[in-house]
Structures are given as structure tokens and as C-alpha cells.
């Protein structure tokens, strides 16, 4: 009995160690590694036609700001179309979008009826794709505020025919609003400035994040667009692109601001959707990933770890419980007891430090002096994620057993607090 317990514990520690090594490798890569993939400067000789899709469901507080910014983009107007898909909004979104469309010919609006609306982002994006004419399809959320030259920076990478998609960096606009927005900002720094950059440098699996990114239109169509059954449609699309033999590039200098969730409740809803969607993607893509002929071994390892990342908080808790049980029931004279002691101790101490190290170095590289001091508070977010991921895991298992999903799409609501940090006119605010 004890040996089974020990075996499970060893396996868990091995999996967790793989993640901790990955954290350190990514952080050191982001810090020091200079042998990354080539970067491209925007070239005027390569400027494909571009369609930007902006899904909007009750976004009256932020859509004006976002549209104003898209018309300020420096990409040639004749090659740029902006398609707003009003997903059955019941607020002023429709009127705001229409007023912009009347004024600027590059903005097109698609209205979905109130009955059709609010059923998920994938359906809305597929609707937009039907009307898009660009060679490259970009997606931006309604609360996003991009750099003016972001499209040039991102499209430059499509000169490489192997590149099927690109991803820019997301940073938090309303960071000073609440503790939650500050912690989200730290998570974003770790996720983009370190994780995504290191993945790109090491030729691993940079992820398409669903927004601030673009796909080749022909690839997107050949993949059948966004899958409405998937909650994490971005992770799903990422792996479908890689399995089809394409690469995704991450461009750190292509930045876009987002309005982060401000309360623990919104944070919980968003992360639950991400966790459940990611687990759903893991169940779908793990086996095809292992068998794929289009991916190198290092890509497969990274893909495997990426797909399973939301199971990790669950594993950590399980390892604590099993470790404590094993420790209390085993004789202190047994050999395994002494084998376990240092390994668990070192893992728990150095291993648990790895995510803090990653985020801290990201903030250091960005020159963020004050936000570094909030790093210890990430422990709160971690504990919260343990609960969220555990719930998502059990819910997805139940839905697999029962055979139907009980999840109802919950959209992240935006209060427009990001408007306080940029110059926004009344029209952009929707007044």
C-alpha cells in the first residue's frame, strides 16, 4: 500500500519538477539567451490586406475607445478593414459602432440578433470571418487599445511562409485600479515577457492568445475557423495550426493594452473558463500531439506541458496531501523515508520559488520598480487558482461522464475603468 503511495508521489514530483525546470529555463532564456529566432522589421514591400475582427457583446463602455484607436492605426487604410460583430448587444454598443461606421468607411458592422447573441466568441468570430476579405485575419477584443503601428509589426512575420499565425503582447491598461488588476498585470508580465518570449526564442510552442494576434486567412479557413464547442478556442486553434505544420511567432514589441478584470469574482469566472477550456483542449489534442509528424521532440514536450498546465495546481495539492500522508505513516527508519525527505524539501522550497522568479524577472526586465514588491501576493492568486482548477477538473469529468456540458458561456464584463488612464473623448466613451 505504502509503495503505491510512494510511486504516485514520485510521479507527481517528477511532473512538477518538469514544470519547475521549465520555469527556470524560460526565465533564464528571457534574460540571457541571444540565439533566438530572427526578428523582422516592418517592411513596406510586404503589406498584405488585413481584416480586424472585433466581437462585441454589451461593450458600450469600451468599444468607442477601441474603435477610435483602430482608425488611428498607421497601416495603409486601403489594405485595412475593421469588422465589428455586434453580438446581440442590449446596451448602446450597436449605436456607437454604427456612428463610427457612418464616419469611417473602413469600419463595417455585422449585427446579430438578440436571440443569437451571447453564445460564445467562436460563433461570433466565424460570423466575422465570412465577411472578411483580408489575407490576414486579426482578432482584437472590444476593450483592447493597441499601439498605432501594431499591425505592421505583426504582419511583417508573415513573410515567412511557415508562419501561420502571430501573437502580440498583452499588457494591462487599468493596472492601478485594484489589487486584482495589479496581480493580473504581474501574471501577464510573466506569461508574455518571459513565457511567450522564451518559447519563441527556443522554437517551442508560442501560443495564439485569441486576441492581439492574427492568422493567415487560408490557414484559418482550412482549419474550419474557430470551434464553437471549445471554451479555450485560442488554445484549440494554436494546436490545430501546429498539427497542420505551421508555426506561430510571438512578437514582444507589438503591444496592446487590455482592461483587466477588477474583482475576484470576475477573475474567478474568467480563470474558470480558461481552466476548463484548456483541460478540454488537453483531452482533444494530447494524443494527436504525441503522434504528430510535424513537430519536433522539443515542441512535443513543450506542447505537452502547455496543454496540461491547468492540471498543475491540482497536482500540487495532491502532492501535499500524499506527501503529508506518506510522511506520517512511514517509519522514520525506512530507506524511502530518507530518500523522500531531501527531494520533497528541495522541490517545495526551490520549486515553489520558480513561478515567483519568472514573474519577478519579467517585471525587472520591464523596469517595473514598484510592482515587483507585490510579487508575494501572487500566492493569493495561486491559492485561488487551486480552487478554480479543481472545480474545473471535476466539472469537466462530470460532463464527460454524463455526456453533456453544463457550462454556460459567461462573458467578461468591462467597466471602462481603462478610460481613466488614457485621453478618451465623450464620443469614445459612448456618451
Amino acid at each position, binding site marked *: 500500500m505504502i509503495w503505491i503511495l510512494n510511486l504516485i508521489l514520485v510521479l507527481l514530483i517528477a511532473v512538477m519538477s518538469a514544470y519547475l525546470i521549465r520555469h527556470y529555463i524560460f526565465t533564464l532564456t528571457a534574460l540571457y539567451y541571444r540565439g533566438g529566432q530572427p526578428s523582422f522589421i516592418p*517592411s513596406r514591400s510586404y503589406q498584405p490586406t488585413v481584416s480586424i475582427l472585433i466581437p462585441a457583446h454589451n461593450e458600450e463602455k469600451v468599444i468607442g475607445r477601441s474603435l477610435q484607436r483602430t482608425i488611428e492605426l498607421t497601416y495603409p487604410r486601403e489594405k485595412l478593414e475593421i469588422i465589428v460583430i455586434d453580438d446581440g448587444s442590449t446596451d448602446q454598443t450597436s449605436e456607437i459602432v454604427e456612428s463610427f461606421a457612418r464616419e469611417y468607411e473602413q469600419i463595417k458592422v455585422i449585427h446579430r440578433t438578440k436571440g443569437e447573441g451571447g453564445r460564445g466568441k467562436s460563433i461570433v468570430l466565424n460570423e466575422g470571418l465570412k465577411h472578411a476579405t483580408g489575407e490576414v485575419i486579426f482578432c482584437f477584443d472590444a476593450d483592447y487599445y493597441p499601439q498605432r503601428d501594431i499591425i505592421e509589426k505583426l504582419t511583417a512575420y508573415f513573410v515567412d511562409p511557415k508562419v501561420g499565425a502571430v501573437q502580440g503582447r498583452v499588457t494591462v491598461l487599468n493596472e492601478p485600479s485594484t489589487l486584482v488588476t495589479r496581480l493580473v498585470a504581474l501574471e501577464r508580465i510573466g506569461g508574455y515577457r518571459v513565457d511567450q*518570449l522564451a518559447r519563441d526564442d527556443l522554437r517551442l510552442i508560442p501560443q495564439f492568445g485569441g486576441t492581439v494576434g492574427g492568422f493567415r486567412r487560408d490557414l484559418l479557413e482550412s482549419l474550419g475557423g474557430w470551434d464553437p464547442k471549445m471554451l479555450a478556442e485560442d488554445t484549440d486553434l494554436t494546436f490545430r495550426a501546429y498539427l497542420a505544420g505551421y508555426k506561430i511567432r510571438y512578437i514582444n*514589441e507589438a503591444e496592446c493594452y487590455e482592461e483587466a478584470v477588477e474583482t475576484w469574482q470576475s477573475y474567478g469566472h474568467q480563470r474558470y473558463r480558461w481552466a476548463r477550456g484548456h483541460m478540454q483542449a488537453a483531452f482533444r489534442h494530447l494524443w494527436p500531439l504525441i503522434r504528430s509528424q510535424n513537430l519536433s521532440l522539443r515542441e512535443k514536450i513543450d506542447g505537452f506541458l502547455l496543454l496540461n498546465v491547468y492540471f498543475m495546481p491540482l497536482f500540487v495539492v495532491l502532492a501535499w496531501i500524499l506527501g503529508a500522508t506518506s510522511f506520517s505513516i512511514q517509519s522514520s527508519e525506512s530507506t524511502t523515508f530518507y530518500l523522500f525527505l531531501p527531494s520533497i524539501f528541495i522541490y517545495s522550497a526551490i520549486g515553489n520559488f520558480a513561478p515567483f522568479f519568472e514573474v519577478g524577472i519579467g517585471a525587472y*526586465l520591464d523596469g517595473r520598480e514598484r510592482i515587483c514588491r507585490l510579487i508575494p501576493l501572487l500566492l493569493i492568486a495561486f491559492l485561488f487558482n487551486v480552487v478554480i482548477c479543481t472545480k474545473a477538473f471535476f466539472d469537466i469529468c462530470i460532463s464527460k461522464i454524463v455526456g453533456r456540458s453544463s457550462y454556460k458561456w459567461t462573458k467578461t464584463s468591462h467597466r471602462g475603468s481603462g478610460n481613466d488612464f488614457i485621453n478618451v473623448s465623450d464620443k469614445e466613451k459612448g456618451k
Partner: protein
Amino acid sequence: MSSQPYSCSVPCKETPQYLHVVIGGIVVIFLIFVLQHVLTGSALISLIIFNMIFLLTFPLRGPLWCKIIWLLLGNTVGVLWSLIRLSFSLVLKTDFYGIDFFLNHIIDFLWVVPIWSLALSSLCILKHRKKNIENPK
């Protein structure tokens, strides 16, 4: 359909401060040598781990004196923390059946991570200050 590749990768990378790592390593060895006369058991292991973790800060850009001060400060806090923890267990006179063994190094994070993040923040500030002096607007 042509594009010029960058000569240097964006964003720019740091160059590790190897000399700082060597000096930091010597200081850490000296500190461990001193600490083993003061502490034993899990308290000593915790401080050794803190020192190992803190060594990762030494290759970063920033003045060596700042890194050493924070290293010494961290060790001082660690010793005080261990004394407080020891006092508590003596006062409570309880044996948590090994659970405390697992909890101890998780609880130690309550001082390890804040000290490290404050050190990192100081390095950031000094890096900025130096940059501003070198390139005044």
C-alpha cells in the same frame, strides 16, 4: 516580399555579471559557514535554500553592494524568523506529527519571497537611476 532581419534580437538581452556571481558565491559560502554555528536542522536548510535562490540575483545588472546588502538582510531576517518559529514551538510544546515539516518551508516563503522581491525592486530602481544619469533628458 522581402524583409530585413534585425541584427540584434528585440527585446535586448542582459549579459550575466559573472564577477558578481563569483563574489556572491564566496559571500554565500562564508555565510553558510557562519550560520551552521548558529542554526541547525530545518532552519539551517531554509537559510541555505534562501542563499541558493538569492544567488540567481547576482548575475543581474545592478550594483554589487546592493545585492550583498540584501543578501545579508535576508539572512538576518531568516535567522530572526527561525528564532521566532523555534520560540513558538517551544511555547506551544506541540508535535504536529510531521505536518510542520511540510508547512515550514512553505511558511518560510512568507519571508523569502518578500525579501527577494524587495531586492529586485531596489535593483530596478538603481538600474533606472543609473540609466537616467548616463542619458539625462
